[in-house]
C-alpha cells in the first residue's frame, strides 16, 4: 500500500468519525491542531485504522502520532 493510499484511507476514517473534510487531510497536518480531532475521536480513528489496515497501534504509540504523516509512516512500517 502506498503512502497516498494510506492517507486516503485515513481521510475516509477522519470524515466518518470526526467530520473532517477529506481534502484537508495531508501528511503535514496535525490531528489536534489542524484537523480538530479531539482525544475521544482519536481513539475511534485508531481503532478504525487498525481494522482498515490490519495493524496494531498500541496506546503508547498513539501519543507519538501527532500528524497524519506520523500515522502513515507507522501504518506503512507495520503493514
Amino acid at each position, binding site marked *: 500500500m502506498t503512502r497516498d493510499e494510506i492517507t486516503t484511507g485515513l481521510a475516509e476514517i477522519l470524515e466518518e*468519525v*470526526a*467530520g473532517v473534510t477529506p481534502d484537508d487531510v495531508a501528511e503535514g497536518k496535525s490531528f489536534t491542531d489542524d484537523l480538530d480531532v479531539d482525544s*475521544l*475521536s482519536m*481513539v475511534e480513528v485508531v*481503532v478504525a485504522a487498525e481494522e482498515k489496515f490490519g495493524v496494531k497501534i498500541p496506546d503508547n504509540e498513539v501519543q507519538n502520532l501527532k500528524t497524519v504523516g506520523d500515522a502513515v509512516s507507522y501504518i506503512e512500517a507495520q503493514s
Partner: protein
Amino acid sequence: MAHTDVVVTGLGATTPLGGDVASTWDAMLNGQSGVSALTPDWAEQLPVRIAAQLAVDPAGLLDRVKLRRLDRSEAIAIIAAHQAWADAGLADSGLDPERLGVSVGSGIGGALTLLAQDDILEASGPRRVSPHTIPMLMPNGPAAWVGLELGAQAGVHCVASACATGAEAITLGMDMIRAGRADVVVAGGTEAVIHQLPIAGFSSMRAMSTRNDEPEKASRPWDKARDGFVLGEGAGTIVLERADHAAARGARVYARLAGAGITSDGYDIVQPHPEGAGAVRAIAKAIADADIDRRDIMHVNAHATSTPVGDLAEIKALRQALGDHPVLTATKSMSGHLLGAAGALESIATILAIRDGVVPPTINLDDPDDGLDLDVAANKARHLEIPAALNNSFGFGGHNVALVFTRA
C-alpha cells in the same frame, strides 16, 4: 409565604405527535394518536408490538458527526431545548451565562447506547466499544448537553424520578429561580428507550397494553377496556424565568408556574397507593405553594397512563384534593407514555390549555370506567376559561409531583 414569581417564556418539544410544540398541540386538539406498530425484526418476539415513536426523527436535524456522540435521549433533549430557547427570544438577549441553569431529567437514561455498545462488546470485544459510551449513557448526559449547547453556567442538574421526572425537573428549575441561583432555567425531560429490553421489562410487569392489532386505540385512560400504558419517546423543555427578568426584556409570557408539590408514598416500589394518599398530599402542597383557591383550578392534565389500578387511584385523589369541578384530560391517550419526558410534555399541554382556553381531549374513552366520577373532556376538545390548572405526575418508586400553572 410569598415567593419570587416564576413564569414560562418558552416551549420546545419533539414528540410522537409532532416535531415541535405547534404541531404536537394541533394534533392533540384534533385528537390524533401517535401510537403505531413496531416494525423492527426484534419486535416480532415481544408480547407488545406497538409504541408511540417520534413523529420526526432527530437524524435529519443534527449534524451527523455530532449525532455519533449523542444518545437518542440526548439528541432530542437538545432539539427541544433549542426550540424553547428560540421561542423565548433568548438567543441574542445578552443573558449572563452564570444566571442560566438547566434541569433536564430522564427516567431511564441512555439505555439505547448501553444496549448497543453491549452488542458491540459481545460481538467484537472491548476495544471496539465507543469512547463516547459513557457520556452517551450517563443519566445527566441530556442535561449536560443542553447546558453545553446553551452555555449554561448556573448549574446543570439531572432529576430522576421515573415517570415523575419531567415534572420534578421543572420543580427544581422553579426552586433554583426562587432561591436566587438563576434568572432563567431550561427545564424538562427526555426519554428514548423504544427497544426490546425495556419493553420486555415493562411487559413482564404486565404494565403495558397488548392491543397490538389496534395501536391507535391502545392508550385509553379511564376506559373500561384499558389494559396498560403505551411506551412513547420524546422530549419536552420549558423556559422558566424570574417574572421581573422576563418583564424587563419584554418577553412573551405563556403562564405562571405558581406552585409545586412533591411527596413520596412510602408504600410500594411500583404500586400506587390505592387511595392515592401521596398524590392528595402533593396536590394540596402545590395549591398551598401557589397560594390560590382550589376552586380556581378548572383543568387537570392527569397522569392517567391507561393502567387499570393507577387511573382510578388518581381519580380518588383528585376528588379528595380538588372536588368535582375541574375538567380532566389524559393526553397520554394520544402521545403514549413518555416516561421521564411525560411531565414536561404534559406541562406544555397544560400551559397551552390555559393560554388557548381549551382542554385537549382524552381519546378512546368510549366506555368510561364505573370509578370515573369526574368530568373528562372525552374524545373531543372542550373550550373552557382556565385561570389555573394542575398537572400531575407519578413515578415508580412512589414519586408524586403536582404542578400548578396560572394565567399570565
